[in-house]
């Protein structure tokens, strides 16, 4: 049980896909203008990542090593198409907002990386937790970025006015430059946080 928790939790902070590994950045910047878009994107990636890890892990003994990458890509693309069709049917407005970035989940480095590094070598349950943890870390990062951008750039969260009508929205946060600046500072902040966590672990005498 402890081992599974470890596999799950490393994706959250220590190996956060966006802040630490700096993988799959395109959507983190492009669709985080509002919280709801960020959340939908996060959950879609969470689903694709866990589902693909399970598929890759289940088929790891059948797949010839030489052709594994095209097979992973096909599997990812199939799951992404499923998500696209589902969103198109049940949440057409969100589907329109996310637009092309939803199809681009196929080429997210993080998904292929987890399949190659983890799922192709481990059994189903740990692979699922690995994908789930990485997906949660991704969603968490998207939520943080989305909340800050919507709050500062529009004065709202999920469409509800938080800062009052007297607040002058800082438009730059919704525009592309603001996204780059914000992520830059967040990457710095997560580095500080990780250093602090490592120190604390060492002080406790645990092996990192």
């Amino acid at each position: 049980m402890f081992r599974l928790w470890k596999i799950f939790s490393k994706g959250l902070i220590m190996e956060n896909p966006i802040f630490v590994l700096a993988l799959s950045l395109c959507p983190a910047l492009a669709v985080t203008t509002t919280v709801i878009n960020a959340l939908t994107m996060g959950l879609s990636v969470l689903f694709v990542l866990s589902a693909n890890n399970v598929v890759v892990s289940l088929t790891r003994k059948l797949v010839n090593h030489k052709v594994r990458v095209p097979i992973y890509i096909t599997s990812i693309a199939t799951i992404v198409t499923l998500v696209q069709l589902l969103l198109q049917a049940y949440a057409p407005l969100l589907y329109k907002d996310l637009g092309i970035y939803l199809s681009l989940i196929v080429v997210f480095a993080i998904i292929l990386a987890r399949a190659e590094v983890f799922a192709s070598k481990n059994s189903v349950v740990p692979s699922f937790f690995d994908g789930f943890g990485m997906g949660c870390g991704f969603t968490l990062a998207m939520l943080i970025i989305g909340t800050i951008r919507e709050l500062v750039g529009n004065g709202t969260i999920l469409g509800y006015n938080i800062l009052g009508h007297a607040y002058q929205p800082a438009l730059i946060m919704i525009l592309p430059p603001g996204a780059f600046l914000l992520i830059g500072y967040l990457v710095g902040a997560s580095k500080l946080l990780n250093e602090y966590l490592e120190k604390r672990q060492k002080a406790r005498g645990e092996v990192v």
Partner: protein
Amino acid sequence: MNDYLLLFIGAVIVNNFVLTRFLGLCIFFGVSKNLKASVGMGMAVTSVIFISSIFAYGVYNFILVPLHVTFLTTIVFVLLIASFVQLLEMVIRRYLPALYKMWGIYLLLIATNCVVLAVPLINIESNFSFAKSLVNALGSGVGFAVAIILMASLREKLRLAEVPKPLEGLGIAFIVAGFLSLSFFGFSGMIK
């Protein structure tokens, strides 16, 4: 003619792929540490986007649409582009070794990358004609090259600067990209 020129300039500057649409960031931040590598990457991306747009246009209009399976676009395009890039790599390694030395390694990096997949998808979403797809592809590639070369030059200067410790590396790269994006934003009124 005017139309095409506007589309081209729009793709290079106003809707710059990296700086306003956030595509290809992995390569953008990964390769821009080195100016020479950035030039090679810019060329490789431009040519791959251009050629794969041609293929994608053909496959979409002559295979997917007549068979009514347009929902398979994503899968088909990914596989199409990945296999095409692999082929291109083999051909270049065999027949043009000098060129291969220059940007062969970048080809494999872009086999599954968002820039290369995004351009054909955007072409289809915007209902571009064949000629317009080509212009858009060329403009997007050139825009990517301009952005990555500018960024690489900035980062070479940055090496001499004293950066606060937590922001070293990726953090400061993002902040620099933010200012670069801000300056490109100045062009946004140019084309409606």
